[in-house]
């Protein structure tokens, strides 16, 4: 595959779209949530404000949320692929996006506390590459993952004595819903819950986070996980936490679960909490042309 001179411009547009335009499925789900809440309740008012903000951000081309988060790029690419060029283009695009206020300067040196000012730094932005079998097609999924929601993510090791959660699906249910109760309004719900059952400490979180890329309305091909997803969403919405923790029925917009083999000694359940401002955008490069999904 040849290098692409326009790549950083294309990536800049990817960032702009991700920061300022919420995916249609999330917006629809929020609107549905508002319709289900009691008229004039704090939950309905909060969802109304959220929907108004989404429309305004798209119109003004300004960030939906001021916490534009960690930019996370997931790249799927053919076998012959200029990975270094893509990484450099993302870094450049992130810098330009920061000057254009699509992104807030968010990269802080963890040792000195200094903000780099341009959203670049060690492992920042985050870029993950995965080879696929398509010949002349690259897909880049960008996720902007805000800090407030990231802080409410949790990883449990089963068994969990405090919750009476054993090494089975019932234990999995208990810890996922415990994470939702602990999050309250701190993670800016209604949330998308992304979960990995199994794996190790790092693969668990990584696989869970990727689940956020799934469309809300898709169906898990594994019937056991598909049923678990629906059940978790339904039970979470019976907790009464509501949008922003104000009370109400719309606590979770959807649940996405995957699993990974684990060693006999470990049984992790890794939960990523995605805020209602679930900013994600795909860019597809095919035959030298770019399109945004």
């Amino acid at each position, binding site marked *: 595959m040849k290098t692409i001179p326009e790549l950083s411009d294309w990536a800049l547009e990817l960032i702009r779209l991700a920061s300022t335009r919420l995916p249609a499925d999330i917006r629809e789900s929020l609107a549905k949530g508002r319709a289900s809440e009691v008229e004039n309740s*704090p939950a309905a008012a*909060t969802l109304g*404000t*959220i929907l*108004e*903000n989404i429309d*305004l*951000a798209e119109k*003004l081309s*300004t*960030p*939906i*949320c*001021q*916490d*534009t988060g960690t930019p996370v790029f997931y790249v799927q690419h053919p076998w012959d692929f200029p990975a270094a060029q893509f990484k450099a283009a993302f870094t450049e695009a992130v810098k330009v996006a920061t000057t254009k*206020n699509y*992104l*807030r*300067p*968010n990269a*802080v040196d963890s040792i000195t*506390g*200094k*903000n780099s*000012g341009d959203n670049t730094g060690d492992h920042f932005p985050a870029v993950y590459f995965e080879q696929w079998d398509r010949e002349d097609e690259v897909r880049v999924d960008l996720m902007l993952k*805000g*800090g*407030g929601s990231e*802080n409410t993510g949790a990883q449990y090791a089963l068994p969990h004595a405090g919750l*009476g959660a054993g090494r089975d699906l019932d234990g999995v*249910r*208990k810890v996922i*819903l*415990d994470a939702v*109760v602990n999050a*309250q*309004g*701190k*993670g*800016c719900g209604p949330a998308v819950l992304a979960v990995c059952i199994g794996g190790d400490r790092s693969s668990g979180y990584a696989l869970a986070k990727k689940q956020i890329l799934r469309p809300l309305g898709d169906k898990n091909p594994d019937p056991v996980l598909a049923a678990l997803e629906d059940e978790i969403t339904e*039970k979470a919405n*019976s*907790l*009464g*936490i*509501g949008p*922003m*923790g*104000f*009370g109400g029925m719309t606590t979770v917009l959807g649940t996405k679960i995957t699993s990974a083999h684990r060693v006999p000694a470990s049984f992790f359940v890794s939960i990523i909490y995605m*805020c*209602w*401002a679930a900013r994600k955008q795909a860019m597809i490069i095919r035959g030298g042309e770019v399109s945004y999904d």
Partner: protein
Amino acid sequence: MIKLKTPITEEKIRSLKVGDVVSLSGVFITARDAAHKYMIDEWLDKEPRGEDAELRAILGPLLDGGVIYHCGPVVRQDEKGKWHFVAAGPTTSAREEPYQHRVIGQLGVRAVIGKGGMGEMTLDACVKHGAVYLHAVGGAASLIAQQVVEVEDVYKTEFGLPEAFWRIRVEDFQCVVTMDSHGESLHKKVLQDSRKRYEEIFGA
């Protein structure tokens, strides 16, 4: 809708109850993680000196009877060097829990705006000193930025732009009282109710 103007009197604050919708106008100071740690370390744990004393002399009178907004905005600087808020929703307030009660008690702050609510120490300080916690809608950043009519000044930009103290003038900034000076907290109630419901689900 209850209209409030900064500086806010204790009497006004004491009249507010959880669930009240308020509209604020006047001056807010944004302060989040670095700013709260700074106020405690450099102003309250010791006698401030030099630049720290100067900054306290500027911000102290605005915080007394004033409003702190937990916010790290997206900002734009125009050709003349003037700053503007582009996106400015609230950040999670719980991280300021170790500091907030002292900032309320020792600096006279009457209202703290954020999201997600705060804990017992802050609630106690609201009761003791006459303060409230106000909830803005998390993530509603483009919309909320419209209520910021002027950025008057900025201090401590070395903390990074999201972490600096922004002195802003707002008009008709709407939020909901979720923790009041009578010891009521919506967050406490929703947490207790949802934990109870959790236990019902699993038959504990």
